[in-house]
């Protein structure tokens, strides 16, 4: 077996060293930046673990909305954005649209900032 693809694990252990060994010895001026580095690494780990699943779930939601099973996520997002801007969904579909938006936002938060709003 090969460990070369274990990128999330590599990042996790690197982040642990940064936080537990490097940061306590970092000057106060650099600590804020070190914390940003640690945050960026945590986002990268979550993106590696959740990103593909998150995007395929969003694609499935939008494909369901448009009954367009084969469309790609960029195509669907572009179409959804055009329709939202044009106000093409009537008041009767507003609840459905908001539920869909909320679901995709929650999934994006799970990567960008999992403690927010929970």
């Amino acid at each position, binding site marked *: 077996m090969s460990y070369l693809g274990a990128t999330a694990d590599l990042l996790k252990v690197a982040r642990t060293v940064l936080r537990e060994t490097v940061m306590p010895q970092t000057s106060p001026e650099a600590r804020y930046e070190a914390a*940003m580095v640690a945050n960026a690494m945590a*986002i990268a780990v979550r993106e590696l673990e959740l990103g593909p699943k998150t995007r395929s779930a969003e694609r499935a939601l939008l494909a369901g909305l448009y009954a367009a099973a084969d469309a790609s996520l960029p195509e669907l997002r572009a179409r*959804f954005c055009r329709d939202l801007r044009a106000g093409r969904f009537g008041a009767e579909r507003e609840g459905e*649209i908001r539920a869909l*938006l909320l679901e995709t*936002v929650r999934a994006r938060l799970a*990567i*960008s900032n999992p403690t927010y*709003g929970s």
Partner: protein
Amino acid sequence: MALKDELIPPLTRWLEGALGARAVRIERMEKLGGGAIQENWGLDVRVTGGRLDGRHALVLRTDAPSRVAVSWDRAQEFRILEVAFRAGVAVPEPVALCEDEAVIGKVFYLMRRAEGEARGHKLVRDPAVRAKGEALAARLGAELAKLHRVRPPVPELAFIPVPDRAPALWRVEEYRRHLDALGAKEPVLEWALTWLERHAPQGRDLCLVHADFRTGNYLVSNGELTAVLDWEFAGFSDPLEDLGWMLAKYWRFGSYELEAGGIGSREALFAGYEAEAGHEIDRAAVPYWEVMATVRWAVIALMQAARHFEGQEDSLELALTAHVLPVLELDLLTRVREIEETSR
């Protein structure tokens, strides 16, 4: 770290001319924090003769290597600062503007240095701020009321466009333009912009607005306001735009229960504003502008992230700004629902 040493002599000579001084000596120089967009240098100067005779702590402000297209340049910001200073707003006194790039290689201006802390995450946890937060919020409201007395047209600010229709609709169009220029496909922002378009107040009550008036952009010393900073986004708009920005959830730095920038109550901000303005704020009209503020910050965050990801400027801070977006999207969905539940 200092400006390159070889820049000190030309800067000194220029200062002597600008201040009408017999002699100027730069005694100390240090780079100041803050500002993802511009550079600030603290300057202690000794001036002999002229309009600023004596010793002064100044700030020299220049453009950083790249900037957001929606922000004014340093020369324009200096004009805005002059207008705000004359209107009696607590701003650092503008001292001199140098538009000759030959002096230090870029346009810069000087203002008096105000003391205090600006960083939001520090301020919301500062014991003095926690003790005097209501008074601070009221004072911030009063400063906004002073600024909002400035009405277009203002000859010195002819470079600032005046909305030719309801400012809310004007903003909606502006933000859509920015999203299109970025090629951004962001459904929640499109949804929020459509909501803002449908609920736009039709009035055209225009005044000078700061447009980035929030915790993080003013200085506080011992719990008291010393100066309002960062005028590079100022514009002519609805006065409630500044109040909405100050009340937007994001700028509370985690101190969510204090709706005015994490330092005081919404009512204290309004009361301070009303006491200075002499008229009441339409409270029901403010939450609309909180939604507008959240969209605005999301659009600016996308533009800042683009500066990194499109290769204009390598910056971890700018790159991380992209991850602010989901937070703002949740805020948008939540705030619109709250507004609708209240009005029902």
